[in-house]
């Protein structure tokens, strides 16, 4: 065939063709924990990783595999692994690559849970992280030590919306033979495919735009297959002998897919953050319309930006597509279709004004999620990032009055009308 299908087509089809037995057009939900082996020999083959297949849903499942293969196709990766959440994906990557005594360089402007994992949880297991400004390539270069095993950042920072200069950082990582791991949740492969810019590993929260409807949790690791893990001293967990499977070296036996093989054999096997097949099905339904939704998300975002920038009640607005954003030029270069549908803004009147606004809008939902088809709002200072110290908040570009807006797909005039309702309440408060 060799059709080399395009993004919109892959969003609908990749990972599944109707099976000959049932002809089911949709991806079937294989709601099963386990799979009958035809022989003891076949069972042994699967356990020994001699051939591909499914042996237990904690490790892999046909519905989940269809999702994984769709993600690998959309990102242009060698392989992918889906799991229970974006945070599970993040932990699977860190624990697959790092051991006690290792070091990570990470962006200081990230989602609170990403920071928590690296700042508080991983040090208890002997893995330390230095946080640096993602917009300062020299700082990243300086922070890299001989025991640094990965550099981590978010393409679009949450919630500060800083844009990482991926090609620049990738060059640094490449010269030091360190994998660049990116959380690409906010951009999705529709807006930007990080492997094309030199990144090596992508983590996603599928719960957000990829799933897109706020109905199913999920995460994924996508492996670019473009990193050389051959240095056994530096990456013993990938290229050295594994504790099981006859001392397998994942790098020697799986090459470009070594990381995913390692995660499946250890992370999924030992920690077990598997994705439910039903959630995989829901997430795939979302991905089918990803290109259409992202286009509308960006259209609505640009319209709302215009509305907020010119609104008398708005103190400030932050979005990388605005030329006032410090990373606007980087955004134009690596995110030409748009820099996502999250907007940060402050309302005149500070913290109390923000509170009044959030409590007065009706259409926009006040909740802890982003990337839903519906418009969402939250006050990060008192919720998602509340456990961070004031210094860490400041370092992450957060202010007390900041509202994080996730622009949905509603009629744009209805969103604006809803916001006017909120601004009216603020006006009353300010009087």
């Amino acid at each position: 065939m060799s059709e080399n299908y395009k993004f919109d087509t892959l969003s609908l089809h990749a990972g599944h063709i109707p099976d000959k037995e049932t002809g089911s057009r949709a991806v079937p939900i294989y709601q099963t924990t386990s799979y009958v082996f035809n022989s003891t020999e076949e069972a042994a083959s699967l356990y020994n990783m001699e051939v591909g297949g499914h042996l237990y849903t904690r490790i892999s499942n046909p519905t989940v595999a269809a999702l994984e293969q769709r993600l690998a196709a959309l990102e242009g990766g060698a392989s992918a692994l889906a799991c229970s959440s974006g945070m599970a994906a993040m932990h699977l990557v860190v624990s697959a690559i790092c051991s006690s005594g290792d070091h990570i360089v990470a962006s200081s402007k990230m989602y609170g849970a990403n920071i928590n994992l690296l700042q508080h949880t991983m040090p208890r297991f002997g893995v330390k992280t230095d946080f640096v400004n993602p917009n300062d390539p020299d700082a990243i270069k300086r922070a890299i030590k001989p025991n640094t095993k990965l550099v981590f950042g978010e393409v679009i920072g949450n919630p500060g919306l800083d844009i990482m200069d991926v090609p620049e950082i990738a060059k640094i990582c490449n010269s030091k033979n360190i994998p660049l791991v990116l959380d690409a949740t906010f951009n999705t492969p529709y807006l930007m495919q990080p492997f094309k810019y030199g990144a090596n590993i992508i983590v996603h929260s599928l719960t957000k735009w990829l799933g897109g409807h706020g109905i199913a949790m999920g995460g994924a690791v996508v492996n670019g297959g473009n990193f050389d893990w051959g240095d056994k001293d530096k990456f013993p967990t990938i290229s050295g002998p594994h504790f099981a499977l006859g001392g397998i070296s994942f790098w020697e036996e799986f090459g470009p897919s070594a990381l995913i093989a390692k995660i499946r054999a250890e992370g999924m096997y030992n920690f077990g953050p598997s994705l439910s097949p039903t959630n995989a099905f829901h997430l795939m339904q979302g991905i089918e319309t990803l290109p259409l939704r992202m286009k509308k998300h960006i259209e609505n975002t640009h319209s709302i930006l215009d509305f907020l920038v010119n609104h008398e009640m708005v103190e400030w607005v932050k979005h990388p597509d605005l030329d006032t954003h410090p990373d606007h030029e980087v955004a134009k270069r690596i995110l030409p279709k748009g820099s996502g549908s999250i907007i940060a803004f402050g309302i005149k009147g500070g913290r109390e004004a923000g509170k009044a606004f959030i409590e007065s809008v009706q259409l926009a939902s006040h909740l802890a999620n982003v990337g839903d088809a519906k418009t969402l709002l939250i006050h990060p200072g008192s919720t998602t990032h509340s456990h961070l110290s004031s210094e860490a908040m400041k370092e992450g570009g957060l202010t007390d009055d900041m509202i994080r807006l996730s622009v949905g797909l509603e009629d744009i005039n209805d969103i604006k009308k809803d916001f006017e309702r909120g601004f009216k309440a603020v006006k009353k408060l300010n009087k």
Partner: protein
Amino acid sequence: MIINFKGVKTYIGTGGKSLDINKMTLCFLHGSGQNHLSFIQQARFFAYKGYSVIVPDMPAHGFSDGNPCKSIKENAEWINDLLVDLKLKEVVVIGHSQGCLVALELNRILKRSLEALIFVAGSNEIPVNQFLLDLSKENSQKASQMMVTWGHGIDGDMSINKWPGHSHYGEGNNIMCMNKPTALRYDLHSCNDYSDGIDAAKIIKVPALAVLAKNDQMTPLKSGLKFVELIKNCETHILDCGHFLPSERPIELNSIINSFLSKLK
């Protein structure tokens, strides 16, 4: 395992088991621009079935250093010397694509007999179009991408894979990128220039198996069927997939090879 062969670092996949020269050895020969990873789902499978397995990365391919061989004959001589160096006793050679041409030539120049020959997506000739030959010189990465796209059947297009989560295209491109940039160019020229396939096929005396692919656009089925006609009593199977048969239909291919090998014992 890594050995020093002819003064050059040479990688040989063994399917996760130590090489035992007293067992029957299956020697897998990769195709143009490929390396040992094109047999991911064969190497471990057969090593765990009690065979010794060797999947050498030809010079300048995969984890092997050195300069690429410049003809099918040079490839065959290199393999011949390797088999002697490793002191292997009973050897079955399994070639994929270009590896089939190398296997044909190896059988012709070998001083002793092989146990059997297995041809996967093979033919007695593999002409390469001029555009791809030129592209492999100018930009081996683009040429690799073209081969990966062109070489796979619908499973490649649709990202269908027996190995959960793996992408034929993504994995295939990166496997080819592991080789030295000149490797593909010399491989493709070696295939294009090889013209002794008919004679080499006719002199095969050992048991032979051919597994061909219905939607093969690199060594078309028509060419593969003509090829097997040249070989005396060649057991032939056709699978519904593209040229990258070892990764597109691993279970079926392994089963056919396993059954063929069991008849040799």
